[in-house]
């Protein structure tokens, strides 16, 4: 018995080490004076500062894209999720199935599609909105799914009928009953969208121009073209932005996007 416990504990520990060690190593590299000579050689924030000055623009752009993407998926995805869950029509079930298609299709393919359609609209193609569009294609399904799942889990139809019987019109029902009841789904969806948008690389890499470089694209750039310490310092900054979001998601009981993808039905 004791042996089994010990074994279990060791395996868990090993697994954690396996997952966390590369991250720790990377962070360590980002604050080392000279990584080749080891972390004991000296610690510095020099690299972090250097990354910040060089890629501040990418951080700002990423946050901007994430906010715009979140706003638009909220405006479109919440009503869509609600309608989808409430509809008893067969077309609604079909739409639900098709919804995950853009997620299943590789980001590169979606990006190519967008380039083929909009590539010739110069101003749009070169603007940040092009990236935002790509991110919406990728994240909207998660928002719709998240909202539709909550709508289906409570008997929204009867709650609305209850509100109507008490004299509430369409808008009053929406504001006083529907929105508060499905709020957990909306919050979960928004957090998922922001996290996915901040981390999205494949699609963004295809769509970006030198002036519309986001955080993950910048990271690839930093690793490819500069010393290991710069890339690692970049990772550190990336983590500092993402980790609070992930903690918030955990606190709100949101499944990680891919798990959510599998569990949504």
């Amino acid at each position, binding site marked *: 018995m004791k042996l089994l416990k010990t074994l279990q504990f060791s395996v868990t520990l090993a697994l954690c080490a396996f997952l966390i060690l590369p991250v720790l190593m990377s962070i360590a590299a980002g604050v080392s004076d000279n990584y080749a000579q080891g972390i004991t050689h000296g610690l510095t924030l020099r690299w972090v500062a250097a990354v910040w000055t060089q890629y501040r623009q990418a951080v700002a752009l990423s946050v901007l894209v994430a906010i715009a993407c979140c706003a638009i998926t909220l405006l479109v995805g919440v009503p869509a999720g609600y309608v989808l869950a409430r509809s008893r029509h067969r077309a609604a079930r079909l739409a639900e199935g098709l919804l995950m298609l853009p997620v299943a299709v590789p980001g590169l393919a979606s990006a190519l599609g967008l380039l083929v359609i909009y590539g010739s609209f110069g101003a749009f193609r070169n603007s940040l909105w092009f990236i935002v569009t790509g991110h919406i294609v990728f994240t909207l399904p998660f928002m719709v799914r998240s909202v539709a799942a909550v709508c289906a889990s409570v008997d929204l139809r*009867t709650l609305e*009928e209850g509100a*109507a*019987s*008490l*004299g509430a019109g369409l808008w*009053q029902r929406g504001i006083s009953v529907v929105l*508060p009841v499905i709020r957990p789904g909306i919050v979960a969806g928004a957090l998922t969208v922001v996290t996915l948008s901040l981390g999205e690389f494949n699609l963004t890499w295809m769509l970006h121009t030198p002036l519309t470089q986001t955080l993950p694209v910048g990271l690839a750039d930093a690793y490819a073209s500069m010393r290991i310490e710069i890339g690692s310092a970049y990772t550190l900054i990336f983590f500092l932005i993402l980790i609070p979001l992930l903690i918030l998601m955990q606190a709100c009981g949101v499944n990680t996007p891919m798990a959510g993808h599998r569990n949504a039905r």
Partner: protein
Amino acid sequence: MKLDSVPIRLERCAKTFPGAARPVLKPLDLDIAAGETVVLLGPSGCGKTTTLRLIAGLERPDAGGRVFFGAEDVSARPIEERQVGMVFQNYALFPHMNVRQNVAYGLSIRRLPPQQIARRVDELLALTRLDALAERQIAQLSGGQRQRVALARALAPQPRVLLLDEPLTALDAQLRESLRTEMNTLLRNLGVTTVYVTHDQAEAMALGDKIVVMSAGAIEQIGTPRDIYHQPANAVVASFIGTMNQLEGVWRDGALHCAGGRLIAAPGAQPRSRLWFRPEDVILTPSGGELHGVVESATFLGGHTRLSLSGVGAAPILVDAPGRTRYATGERIGFSLAAEVWHTPLPDTETTTC
């Protein structure tokens, strides 16, 4: 607390759901007087909820059907304009609000002054004995408490009509009985026109001024609980409400002759070859008796013993024997029938099923 109430009138209200081949409700007419409690009674799936939703305005009748509240034709009005109070089968309480907020909802929607809302909500919480639970979340309430919140919430905006869809079905038997009594007192005091849906005949008997017996989307009989029980209009009603025995025989010389013996007709009775009677119409006669049967089974039910007697007619006769007497299977016992059974109108015998 007393509510203003209106009479309700359904005219040729049928209902066919989109895509369905057959109507769920055949065209039905129904008149409900102001302040009356009418119970819609029938087996599950016979269209009670649909009828209630037609009255509420949650469903529209097929072309030609009309719904009146008093003189006003409300057929085209949505539920939010009909001023009805509705208690749903699953209560449909708002999970994001506490008890007080749920009860206040209909008043807040009407933008009444806060003091007035608070006063009215307190009044209703007291009426439904929920004062102590006012700040509770819905998830923290028991089934019986939820039922009372749903009732208080429906009554708060002073509805013209109260509609209840199986409000006690979700509760356990004991609670159901005590709440039934409570509900009865409340409805009498409120004097609001009430339509109450149930499939429980005991509930229907206890609460209804009138009972509407439904089956397969049609009304079988409308009457007071006594009418329905003692003078069922047809075999469907007779078999759905309580237990009904049927005894067939041959009419000869002012008596009914059957396998169990010879039953002399009550004075003034019409000649009959078939009698319908309830278990309580049977009078057990330990010494002799006109008819005899053999105890096939005896089930002790506390207040009485339910006996099934064979060898009287075609089907076993069910009898409720009062008192502490023990009956053994195979025992032969004598009985006669109350004189009233000769005057019970014969329900027509064709059977419809749901």
